[in-house]
């Protein structure tokens, strides 16, 4: 049995964060979460995930600051998907050279599909 793929959700809105965590856990991913960029960075380095869902407007350290710091950490690094309002998501993703983006408001099916697309093929699901 392959270890479940790990996803880190960095999102300051409690409801969105809980919904993403619950849904991805239901899908068999191992999910950790953080509500600000600094804590997110600590989680990302302490327990390296395969994918990071990153909100951009965050307290303490915002998405841009997170990306800057995260790029300085040692390889291998996780794929990063920007989660933001539709008008900004694509632009923000370009700005921080992210792998993809998910526009708010999103359907949970979309969120799951996006995560699956960016999880490396050799990392299996836990279920």
């Amino acid at each position, binding site marked *: 049995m392959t270890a479940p793929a790990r996803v880190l959700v960095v999102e*300051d*809105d*409690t*409801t*969105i964060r*809980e*919904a*993403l965590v*619950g*849904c991805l856990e*239901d899908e068999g991913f191992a999910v950790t979460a953080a509500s600000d960029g600094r804590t997110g960075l600590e989680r990302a380095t302490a327990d390296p995930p395969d994918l990071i869902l990153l909100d951009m*407007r*965050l*307290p*303490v350290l*915002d998405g*841009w*600051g997170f990306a800057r710091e995260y790029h300085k950490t040692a390889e291998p690094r996780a794929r990063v998907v920007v989660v933001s*309002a*539709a*008008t*900004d998501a694509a632009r923000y993703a370009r700005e921080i050279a992210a792998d993809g983006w998910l526009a*708010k*408001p*999103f*359907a*949970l*099916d979309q*969120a799951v599909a996006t995560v699956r697309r960016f999880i490396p093929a050799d990392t299996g699901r836990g279920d």
Partner: protein
Amino acid sequence: MRLPLRDVSVRSRLGARAGAASWSGPIRGGADAEWSRFCYCPALTLIDVTRGATTPDDPRRETGALNRAHTALRESEELFHLLVERVQDYAIFLIDADGRVATWNLGAERIKGYAASEIVGRPYATFFTPEDREAGKPDRLLRRARQEGRVEDEGWRVRSDGSLFWADAVLTGLFDDEGRLRGYAKVTRDMTERRRLEAELAARQAAEIAVQLRDEFLSVAAHELKTPVTGVRAMAELALRRITRAGGTMDPEQVRVALERIVGQSTRLGRLIERLLDLSRIQAGQLQVEPGRIDLARLVEDTVATAAVAWPEHSFEVHAPEALWVEGDALRLEQVLANLLDNAAKYGAPGGTVGVELAVVGDEARLAVRDRGEGVPEAERTRLFDPFFQGHNASHQSGMGLGLYVSKQIVELHGGRLWAEFPEDGGTRMVVGLPYASVGSAAA
């Protein structure tokens, strides 16, 4: 008309070029030849009168030369008259040493509306508005032209029909070879149209900025609205997925949490929309308060209790009397206090203390909310109550920048005031002052 050519060298150089098709060069004037203009004169027909007159060897030739010189001079003067008279875009005329109009041209007639016969001999002060005349402006300009050689002025002038035009005028003092004042040359251009265009341009630019601000605001508002919409949708979908997955049932505890979240986010959405409506009410002058007798102490207690639930990591310290009755709109004042508490929690130190004080100071009931955060940078303090102004942590954008703006309007509708203080030991202290009548409170 004669140009005040006092500079001998210029005159001799003019002479040296007599008969040329055109001439250009400097011409100086003023009491001490202190001003100069680089001039271009087409079809110049000046002749060197001086040299013609002093050629001694042939009297007949001399007389002929003089005649030719006089003819040429007359022709030249005629041409020059024509030039000045026919210019339409500029009023070019002479004012005598006493300040009366001495000559007139087509441009002056066109711009100012007087025919030469109506205006020559009358004071040039006629062109000024009564206010300018009263303030002594016409004389002041003449004096400066006399003392400084020339003076420029922009301002409203009066046409013969009483209408106003915006003039750009240059007044030049004219002096003879002995330095005596002979009069003044006045060149005036009607800039009304240009001024109107400039005003139009400024208005258009202001409108563009307003549109840009509105667009930015709409983008921020849309962003703000999307967050709770995303939350409601995600929570509802999560519940549905779980019900489907479990074959039509769901753990009641999970249902409760999901529903609570949905209620919370819907409430937030409703509040944001209410704030947007407040903005449009304020802009339409239709924001109203419905005052009644309210106990501020009770209002503080209730509002702080709600804030404490929303910000579980913060502690709220309240100093308030048992009761404090004022005239006010309970719902609106609760909105103000909730906004101040929200800001204090948001911009204060994470997990810090928010202080709330209620007291009577003079004839005011004062309600102060104090945080221990970074305060507000000095450069941003004047904009604190502006609509769309966002807090200092710009990247963590939260809110639409309407809270303090709307709060201030509400407090002012109560006849009160809202201001910010920045204590030396850090943080921000927002103070609401509401009118307080101690007699009324004793009766309550």
